[in-house]
């Protein structure tokens, strides 16, 4: 493991533990890990919890307006986490917003995705946006793994700039079953319920 990656993992272990609980044995098959989102550390927490083997081919999906700013953050995003950038603000951007994510899945990577699109304030996630549905429809073989991040909203709530140490367990659930001809709304609600069920 590269030094900076080791430091980041060590910081996450010390601050929040970020230990994984797997409901089903982890698999290195291409997966989308989708989780509730409450803090700036969420990406790192899941990344640390995955462990070195799964981490090697998992790429977090990161908002360019946050992660591509500042020398250190950009270095971590690009060189350590190997993120897939997405544009949250669509003005001035042409084309399919999901194209970089689809390309990453195409080449066999797994993704870490926060389907709410923004950070919430409470323990339970808000409504999911349609990105997860569109990706799932385009990649029927990819495993859709719900993830619940416990306590992260207490460690670094929205509006704070420093974390406090609180033990945050990362719970990985069983992959979502695929249901043929399911509507977008039904799928997104089922995906959200799968995350809530882990809470």
């Amino acid at each position, binding site marked *: 493991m590269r030094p900076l990656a080791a430091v980041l993992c060590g910081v996450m272990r*010390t601050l929040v533990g970020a230990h994984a609980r797997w409901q089903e044995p982890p698999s290195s098959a291409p997966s989308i890990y989708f989780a509730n989102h409450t803090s700036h550390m969420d990406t790192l927490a899941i990344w640390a919890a995955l462990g070195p083997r799964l981490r090697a081919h998992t790429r977090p999906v990161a908002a360019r307006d946050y992660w591509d700013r500042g020398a250190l953050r950009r270095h971590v995003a690009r060189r350590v986490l190997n993120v897939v950038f997405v544009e949250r603000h669509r003005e001035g951007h042409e084309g399919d917003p999901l194209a970089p994510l689809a390309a990453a899945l195409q080449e066999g990577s797994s993704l870490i995705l926060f389907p709410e699109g923004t950070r919430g304030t409470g323990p339970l996630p808000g409504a999911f946006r349609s990105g997860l549905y569109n990706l799932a429809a385009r990649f029927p073989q990819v495993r859709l793994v719900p993830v619940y991040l416990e306590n992260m909203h*207490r460690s670094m*709530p929205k509006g*704070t700039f*420093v974390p*406090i*140490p*609180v*033990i945050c367990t990362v719970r990985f659930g069983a992959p979502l079953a695929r249901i043929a001809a399911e509507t977008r709304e039904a799928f997104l609600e089922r995906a959200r319920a799968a995350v809530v069920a882990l809470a």
Partner: protein
Amino acid sequence: MSGQQKFYWLMGGVVTLLLVASLVGSLLAARAGSEAARAVIANLNSRIRAWWVMVAIFAVAFLAGPIATLALFGAMSFFALREFVTLTPTRRADHVPLFLSFFVLIPLQYALIGCGWYGLFAILIPVYAFLILPAVAALAGDPEGFLERSAKIQWAVMVTVYCVSYTPALLLLRIPGYEGQDALLVFFLLLVTQMSDVLQYVFGKLFGRTLLAPTVSPSKTVEGLIGGGLAATAVGGAMYWITPFSPLEALAMSFVIVVMGFLGGLSLSAVKRSLGVKDWGAMIEGHGGMLDRVDSLSFAAPIFFHLTRYFL
């Protein structure tokens, strides 16, 4: 015998004890019949394995000197406080007080021991922190459950930082005729508290019949407390040669440590039940969390420190 030689004798004794424990543990594992017995023995053996690791960590810290010992106890306070905060409901307005507790109070408290400033060490948390932490929370402007929230943070910091820090604070004491051996006094305190916990567990498992306080701590028994407590007091008395005490004084001090350790375990069990959990965490295999291991120490250390300071 010099302090160094005493230390090696002690380590030899502890390692022998652990070897015997590991041997007994593996014999019991081979003989365990029922499902319940196997579970108890498996837990016993993970406890013994964790003891090897804990003893190794402490031996390294002791040999590396006082700074390493302080850093080790600072880390223990950090992880114990992290467990306490995790299980205690807090609100957004507690963010700054909690941040200060972890990243200002813990380093400061141990730094004060390091630079030998006894006067501030003794009042930093019960005076300054107890007033400033609630004030900072009040500035955040959220009166919801304010008294309970303040009390919880104060109690958390008191037990996990202030009380635990009294163990390495023994290095501050300047006892005539005992120069350069203060680390052995830390060892003595740890030995008696931990032996008391272990022996109460062993006596409880072997002879335990009468539950002591079933609503607070379902595993503590009268037989375990009396048998284990007296045995640990005797062990402490027999260790008088590493302390500045006479045999009788060592026996009396050990008795106080055992009683306070028991009260610490019981009180923190009550806190656990009130928070609705069985263990503080899962950091130490078989034992639970960091706080499950230092609960007795946190009550015994300050009293032992002040009695020693008063009498010697």
